[in-house]
Each structure stands twice: as C-alpha cells, then as structure tokens.
C-alpha cells in the first residue's frame, strides 16, 4: 500500500471538514472494498478518515412509517434486524446473497453503496481504464466482457455495479441521507445516487467532494411477497451475473429491479404493475447493447424474472 496518514473523526461535521481540507482524502468504514483496492494500487488515498466511531449505527423508525438505517449499520446486522426481515425481506435477502459472513460483519450500509466495480480491467493496473485513470481508455470494450454491462453503457465504460443491497434499495425507493460542506444535509433518491458512465465513468455517484453518507431511509413497507434471486457462477460467495429484486402482490409485479446488468441497479418503472413477465422484460431490457460474450444476460434476466415471479406466486398460495 502507498503511505497515507490516518485520523479518527469524532463527528460527521468533523469528518466532512477533514475531507474537504485534505485533497486525496477518503472516508473508511468497514474497509472491505477500499483496503483491497489500496493493496492492489487501484486506490491510493493520501489520507484516511476513519468514520467508524460516529455513532451512525442504529436503525430507527421514521415518522412516515419507514426505517432510517444508520450509515454504519453492518450488512449482517441490517439483514438480521427483525423489522427488515419482516417488512423489507427483499433487502434482507439481497444482503445475505452477497459476500461472505466475515465480510458482511464488517461491511457497512454506506460502504456497500460506495462499492466499486469488479470489472477485471479496473482491477488490472497494467490496462487502460477510464474509471481508474480518466481518459486512458477502456480495455474492456473489445476485451473479455462476459460479466460486464448490457444496459446503460457508454463508449468510455461497460462496467457493472457489484452490489446486491443496492438493487433491493432501488426496488424499495430508498433515499440516501448525507451531510456536506457547511453542515448542509440532503436526501438523494436512490435512483439518482448511482450514475451511468457517460463520458465520466470515474464519477460514480451523486456525492460532492467531502459529502458523507449518514443514513439510508426506507419508505413505509410495501407488503407483498418480496424475493431476491441471484444467478452466479458458484452456489455461494460470488458476484452476480444477473439478479432480480421483486415485490409481487397477487401475481402482479409491484416493484422490479435487476442487478448485474448495468453500472447501477436497473429499474424501469413502466415495466412494473403487470402480471406478464415477458412484457415486463421487454420493457425493462429495451435498448440493451450486449456483446457476443454477454448477450446471454438478456435471456437469463428474462428467465430469472419468470422464475422469481413464479416463486412469488407459489409463496402466496
């Protein structure tokens, strides 16, 4: 790892101030993604601001009947929370389909939102990558693309977002609460939080410099049958090829989001509301630009949706 200095922040405001004051500073919480990237030389922050002791680790009910999840709630604790298991099962199921028990004990809610792609070319520092080195080019385009994006891609980047949690948050219409410079707080709808690559794939989220995630808020429970289905190349502990987050009620698809297809969770609202998974897949996957190697993702996404909806109908009866 490249040398860096380290400080422990005592309050969110202090953390933001420190981040703004030190160019090249990064927040660190669980560290399960950032430290891996630092060891490989993909990330090289000059200063780390440890935000683990900011007391942002509780899950509280909101006045609107939802839940406010502290940024530092660990993935394992969020999945185990009784209210999440009962009222937001799609979120609990998405969380436990990702990573390993050890990683989920450490990884945080905010850190999961900030996860970076596992594109093999992003990880290979000998190769050009517009995310890692803006303007250097994209080695993935024309390269090995079997697990890269089929929707929302650009000429600069075809990476996918690796998170399972975020796909469920997208289906649930979560909001990301932040504090920024001067103590300014804001709430960013999850739909706007992750960016598609465009010509700046290195800018992955709507966060401004120094802005710190403090919580994720869930609206009141949707009820219904909530499922998360993940297709991957091993039975456990692997990143997705395709995932489906589904909230269904009486055979109708109330909410539908896909993972593994794009640089952000893929949800197309007009595809929702019906009972025909083929029609929903047509609408949700329209405009896809697959390569020869990842074209399988489109029929796989369609079939995974059909299987998930069938399962939801079975659970109901």
């Amino acid at each position, binding site marked *: *790892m*490249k*040398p*860096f*200095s*380290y400080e*422990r922040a005592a309050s969110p405001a202090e953390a933001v101030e420190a981040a703004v004051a030190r160019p090249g500073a990064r927040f*660190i919480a669980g*560290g*399960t993604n950032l*430290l*891996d990237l630092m*060891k*490989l030389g993909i990330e090289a922050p000059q200063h*780390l601001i*440890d935000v*683990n002791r900011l007391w942002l680790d509780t899950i509280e009910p909101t006045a609107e009947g939802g839940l406010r999840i502290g940024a530092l709630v660990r993935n*394992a604790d969020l*999945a*185990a929370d*009784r209210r999440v*298991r*009962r009222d937001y*099962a799609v979120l*609990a*199921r998405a969380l*436990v*389909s990702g*990573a*390993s*028990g*050890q*990683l989920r*004990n*450490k990884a945080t809610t905010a850190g999961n939102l900030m996860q970076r792609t596992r594109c093999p070319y992003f990880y290979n520092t000998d190769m050009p990558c517009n995310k890692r080195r803006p303007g250097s080019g994209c080695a993935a385009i024309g390269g090995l693309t079997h697990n890269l994006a089929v929707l929302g891609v650009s000429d600069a980047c075809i990476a996918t977002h690796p998170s399972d949690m975020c796909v469920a948050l997208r289906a649930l219409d979560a909001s990301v609460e932040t504090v920024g410079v001067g103590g300014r707080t804001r709430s960013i709808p999850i739909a706007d939080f992750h960016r598609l690559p465009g010509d700046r794939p290195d800018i992955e989220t709507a966060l401004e410099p120094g802005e710190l995630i403090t919580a994720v808020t869930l609206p009141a429970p949707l009820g219904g049958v909530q499922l998360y289905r*993940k297709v991957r190349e091993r*039975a*456990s*502990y692997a990143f997705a090829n395709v995932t489906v987050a589904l909230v269904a009620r009486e055979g109708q698809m109330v909410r539908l989001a896909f993972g593994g297809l794009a640089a952000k969770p893929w949800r197309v609202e007009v595809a929702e509301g019906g009972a025909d998974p083929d029609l929903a897949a047509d609408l949700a996957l329209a405009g896809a630009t697959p390569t020869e190697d990842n074209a399988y993702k489109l029929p796989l996404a369609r079939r995974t949706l059909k299987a998930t909806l069938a399962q939801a109908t079975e659970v109901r009866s």
Partner: protein
Amino acid sequence: MTATPRLPVTLSVNGETHVLTLDPRVTLLDALREHLLLTGTKKGCDQGQCGACTVLVNGRRINSCLSLAVMHEGDEISTIEGLGTPEALHPMQAAFVTHDGFQCGYCTPGQILSSLAVIEEIRAGVPSHVTDDLEAPIPLSDQEIRERMSGNLCRCAAYPNIMAAIRDYLGEGA
C-alpha cells in the same frame, strides 16, 4: 511522499492488552502475526477471498487482512491461540482432529474460528442465503452451515470432514 507517522493503538488479544505503535498501513492480520508473533492466524490471499485470516473482533468473525490495526483501538480480538492449547484443545479443535477436518492445515485456524461464529450467528437469528423463512428460528442444518462457511476456502477440499467435525461438536456441546 512524506513518511507516514506511526500511531499508537491498544489491542486486547485473547484477553491480554497490547500497546503497539504502528504504521497505519499495518493490517490487523500483520499486527497479529508480525508484531505480536501470533502466527496461528494465517495469511492466504490477503484480499478477503479465502478466510484463512478469520479472527473474532468483539465476538464477531471478520477477515483480519481487510482491516487496519489502528481502526481496532480498544477492540477485543480472539485468535486461534486463545481458543485452546495442544494439551487442552477446544472441543471444536478436538473435533477437527478426530474427523481429519484438514490436510495441510493452513486454512484450519480460520475454519475453526468461523465454525464457532457460524453456530452463534445461527442461534442469534442472523439469516443466510439459504434461510427459507426469515422470521422463524433458523435450523442448525448442514445446508445452513455449508452456506455460512463459504467464506473459508480449503484448497485440500476437506469440506466433508470439516462438516463432520462441526456436526460432532454440535452433538457434544450443543
């Protein structure tokens, strides 16, 4: 690049307090192995994929390779050295011996700490990918245990014997 100042950190490891002064780049794993000479915790992949470095921090299992030691000020760390001794094995260690739950043994400390944590996680109601009913008590089934042990790789593939050891331990001490 200017030199990075070393930082003090106090760790409690297996009940013993240690005050260390460390470069912030030192991982918890390297602090245990290189600074406290507790080499029972193993470095496999050093990137959170193999689980050989699994330790318990405040009772919860984590990958010690993906955590900086300076982030653990005041934490209680448990390693394989704190579990048992060659003369007085922990019952889980004894079960691994009885059932040949290893061949080369390199992943074994991580497997043993993880298996003890897995049992606690199931009892505490932490769901897994194979939990059918998210609201019912979770069974200590082979399927649950296998899924939860997926973060501990064994390249000798002693998996059936690791399962047998865990089952034996549950039969004895559950």
